[in-house]
Each structure stands twice: as structure tokens, then as C-alpha cells.
């Protein structure tokens, strides 16, 4: 991971000083991170596998439409195939991000490394940020499609 990813880019200083984390609170934090970690790995694996299945289905559909005798893929078939691969790539990316977050959490818990704790938070930020951006893109595309088809 780049050093710039770990360093906060905001030059704005915190208005109040950061409070210390006592032993009891750290134990509490560790229990919560440990509880999150397992489900995060599970979700990451499920997302990657579903992405792989989507890619396989898209590939089979594409191959069938290209090579089956008497059929030729039209414009919308290609759009469908390309969208399938994009969806698969995004799913794999999400899955990898979740697995990386989980891995950083595991390293933090086993090595008690502060850097790993920070990396865990950075990965979580990237995960939610990318999810938000994908949601905005999806909503915009949905709106464009509704407008395009309602005009017909």
C-alpha cells in the first residue's frame, strides 16, 4: 500500500484532541473487529464466487451466440456480454477489498500492529467509497434508461 493512502490528505486539524484508548476499550474494540472480520471474509468469498459465476454465464452466453450455427449476436447481445463482464469485474474488486480488509484486521489482532489497524480503516473507507460511487453510477444509468425508454 502506498504511504499516501495511509496518510490523511486533509490538512484540517481536529478541533478537539484525540482521546486515549484504554486497555478495556481496546479489548472491546478487538472483540468487535474480530466479530466483523469473519463475516467480512465470508462476504468477500461469496461476492468473488458469484462474480466468477456471472463471468462464466456471460462467457457461455457469448460463445453460444457467436458460434452456434444460424445465430449472430446483435448489438444488444454485445451490450449484455460487456455489462456482464463489467459486473463481474466490479464484484471481484469488492470481494478482494473485503478480503484485504479482513486480512488487515487479522494481522492487527495477531500482531497488535497499529499500521494494520490503520490499513484496515483505509480499506473499509475505500470499500464504502467505491460502493457509493458504483451506486451513483447505477442510479444515473437507471435514470437515463428510464428517460430513454419512456420517450418511446
Amino acid at each position, binding site marked *: 500500500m502506498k504511504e499516501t493512502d*495511509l*496518510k*490523511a490528505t*486533509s490538512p484540517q486539524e*481536529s*478541533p*478537539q*484532541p*484525540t*482521546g*486515549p*484508548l*484504554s*486497555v478495556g*476499550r*481496546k479489548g*472491546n*474494540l478487538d472483540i*468487535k*473487529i474480530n*466479530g*466483523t472480520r469473519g*463475516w*467480512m471474509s*465470508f*462476504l468477500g468469498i*461469496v461476492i468473488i464466487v458469484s462474480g466468477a459465476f456471472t463471468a462464466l454465464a456471460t462467457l457461455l452466453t457469448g460463445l453460444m451466440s457467436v458460434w452456434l450455427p444460424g445465430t449472430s449476436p446483435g448489438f444488444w447481445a454485445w451490450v449484455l456480454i460487456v455489462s456482464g463482464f463489467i459486473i463481474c469485474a466490479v464484484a471481484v474488486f469488492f470481494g478482494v477489498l473485503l478480503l484485504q480488509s479482513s486480512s488487515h484486521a487479522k494481522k492487527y489482532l495477531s500482531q497488535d500492529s*497499529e*499500521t494494520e*489497524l*490503520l490499513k484496515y*480503516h*483505509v480499506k*473499509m*473507507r475505500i470499500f*464504502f*467509497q467505491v*460502493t*457509493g460511487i458504483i*451506486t451513483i453510477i447505477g*442510479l444515473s444509468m437507471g435514470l437515463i434508461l428510464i428517460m430513454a425508454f419512456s420517450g418511446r
Partner: protein
Amino acid sequence: MQTDQVSSTISIQTLDEIRKVLRKTWGWLAFLAVISIGQAVFSIVFLFIRPQGGILAILIELASSALGIALAVFLFQASQRAKRYAESGTADELTAYHGKLKIYFTLTGLLVLISLVVAVLMGLIGTFTGYRG
């Protein structure tokens, strides 16, 4: 403040960095929560305007929307905790943020697990009845 007299187990510098990261995270969490709530409310309203399928399908749709809202509420609470930690730097807010995230991921994981089990069962039942038919 009572916490000022306690020595920190994680360096203040790292906690400061985490605070800065959370300052950039909470907005996205809140956005995703609001979108999820909007989506669930929209599907409930749509269900009442134009109900599709039988009573079982409607009940399943309502249950999934209610679960979606519950998940979104936990996500929103996490965002508010992250925001408060970014503003105040109180350790309690950081643990509360992780607590809400834990509930969110646990519920999501359980839902995915249940839906996977249901899908496999439906597939098996479909195959079994298919062979009999």
C-alpha cells in the same frame, strides 16, 4: 475528562490518522444508508400500488424490505458514530462505530447465508420434484 488520565494502548498519532480516515468515511456510509432506506421504502410503496404475485410473495417482499431498512439503520448509526469520533476523538465513539459495523456485517452475512441455503434447498426440491414428474 476521565480518559485523559488513562495511558493509551494505541498511539495517539495512529488514532489521529484513524480519525482523519473516518472523517472521509462517514459521509459515504450515510449516503449508502439513505439510498438503501429509499430503495426499501420505494419497493414497499410499489408493492401497495401494484401488488404482484400471491400473498406469500408479497410477505417475502415486505420482509426483505424491512430487513433492508434495518440494515440501513445500522449503517446510518455507524456513520453517525464515525462522524462523532471524527469530531470529538472520544474512544467510546470509535468502539461504538465498530460495534455498529459488526452488527451490519453479521446481519448481511447471515442474510446471504440464509438465502444461499434457501436457493440450494429450492434447487434440490425442484430437481427432486422434476424427477418425480
